[in-house]
């Protein structure tokens, strides 16, 4: 694959990951813990539910962060490919 094509593919993947991360960060599920606290219900199950929702919220946000980081890495690699192609001998 020509360098420019590889770099373009990485940029497209980065865009996809960035979009997915953004979707994760806007999920309604991230705000469920605010409705599932002791002002709504109390007992063993409510307590377990609240803990579970908080845990999953943290996991989703962590995955969103990981996707953003991966997207940045893809863009950086793409830029490096382009830069190498520009300085390579015989390239106009």
């Amino acid at each position: 694959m020509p360098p420019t094509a590889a770099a373009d593919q990485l940029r497209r993947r980065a865009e996809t990951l960035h979009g997915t991360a953004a979707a994760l960060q806007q999920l309604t599920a991230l705000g469920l813990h605010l409705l599932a606290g002791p002002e709504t219900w109390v007992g063993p199950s409510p307590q377990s539910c609240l803990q579970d929702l908080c845990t999953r919220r943290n996991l989703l946000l962590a995955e969103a962060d990981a996707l953003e980081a991966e997207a940045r890495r893809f863009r950086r690699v793409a830029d490096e490919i382009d830069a190498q192609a520009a300085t390579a001998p015989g390239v106009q």
Partner: protein
Amino acid sequence: MSLLAYDPERVGRLQRAMGEAADGLRAISCTDPAAADAMRVVRATICQLDSTWLPLVTGLVSCDPLSLRQRRSERIDDLDQSLIRVMSSGYGWAVQHDPLSDDPATVTPQEARALGATLNEIDVTALVNDPVQLHWLARQLAIIGGDAGLSSQFLANFHEWARLCDGLGSERAHRLAAASTGGTMNERTAVVADLDAVFAGLADVQQHALPNGHTDLAAAVVVPQIDRMNPYSAALVVQHLRLDSTTLAFVTDSLLRRWWAEPIASGSDDPTTDADHFVGANTADVLFAALLCDAAACRKYMQLALPHLDTVFATADDPRLAFRVVLAGTAPSTTDAAVAGGIVLPVIEYFSQAEYRCDVVLCDGGGGEWRLFLADLVAPWLVQFTPLNEQFSDDPDRTKHALAFVFEGDAARARLLTDAASSTAGVRAAAGDDAARPQDIAAVVTMLYRLALETDVADEQARQQQFDSLATLASIAASAATGVAPVVGGAALLAGVVVDGGSASLQTVLSGNMFDPEGVEDDALYRKALALTAAATDVLAAAALQLVADGQLPPTVLPTPQLDLTTKYPDREFRHAYEAWANGHQIGGDTRALLDSAVNEFANAAMVSDSVYARA
């Protein structure tokens, strides 16, 4: 199965939000391999919502809540349902069964607050009669007490300290008394153990409310409502608080003065207390055991209690605890002589003024151990009782009379005279280092021998007096039989002053010299001379060795004179031998003065008067 309480309207809102959240999650799609982990988390979240939480909230919304009767049948009034009960009866929330059981190892802030509120109104007797609930409470309080935030939540709602603690304390006293009279011993002691754990938990919780680095706190700050609380209940909490020495001493003194002022509270509507059961550890036992962990607290407590020593010695079920508190508070390792004297002398004087009560009332069960206690109290401070020492008192008669009183007990006297270790420890402490000063040892030995001598002579005189009385009685009996006037006193009989017709057989019996106070005195003085002369020979030998090692005396001066056990006059013979030895080696100047000083401390004290030797 547990219960859960909920606000139906808010649960309805939660149900809708969960549905929307699941839809939102399902809308996310990404096939990029780099997003595989993220998609797994998304799918797991959808699964959890769909399979667990949505069915739960949907069930709550669609089913009828439990009726009042159903709640009661589900034991909603139990302590471990405090939060459910508070939210349902206080806030009108609905209640349904919870598919999960409560995890007692986890306490939420809401549970801590609800527990505090419930304990304000709890039926203490019912609680204690339910071992499961009581054990649960003990565990919950331990968890709450281990967390500052939970403790703060609990204390924000709990305020009926006196009511709860008095109720629990009353049950504890009752159970202890019942356990001592038989029955299901194990069960009762298990309840008492859980009650103690509850008191410990309450103390742990309250500990978070005490100011950091606190000292000298007011009692009301230490435990809320302590002034309204029975001293016994308060003691059961206080014993677990980590108080500074001053505060612990102050609170102990305050509680015991109250206990002493009104020890019997029952017979009316008052709850049962330790004072109603004359068995087992009472208020004083509990507090003294706490004091004994802190020598400084013992000392400060004794200083506070001096004006009312009954509260020290007449309160504890085990008087030995009180003795240990006093001994800890006056130990030379932690107390200087001036402070110790301010405690030791008043304590001895207290016992000397209340001796009858000590044997019969105050130290009931002590078996007269208070005399041995006084001996132990005095032993480390013997130097301070010597005539020329003013560290305890500038009135030598006061210290003399105090020590003489301690010496009146045979066991105490024997302990003081034979317990060389404690006596030596006292002398060493007075010297301020490990090397006991000769003059201190000499002064102590002389004083003890003088006291022993006076006591022995007094005893002999008392025996003679008793015999004289018996002899008079016998003479009266004889005269009644013979019609001859009686002779008064055994001494007269012994002197042969018996009129004609007197009892010849009695005269024969009494013709021997049965009593000899002077002989007793001579024997004691001889023993004293022997002991002090032995000490003088040791001191001389040690001093000479040191001077030889320092090059101030030639090695040829050794050996030094030794104790002569064959002579009647060991002190006098040693004095002569020492003079001859020193003169023979031509020891003079500063070296001679040094040796004279070392030897004289003992030798002078050992010298017995010529009149005594003349009798011998």
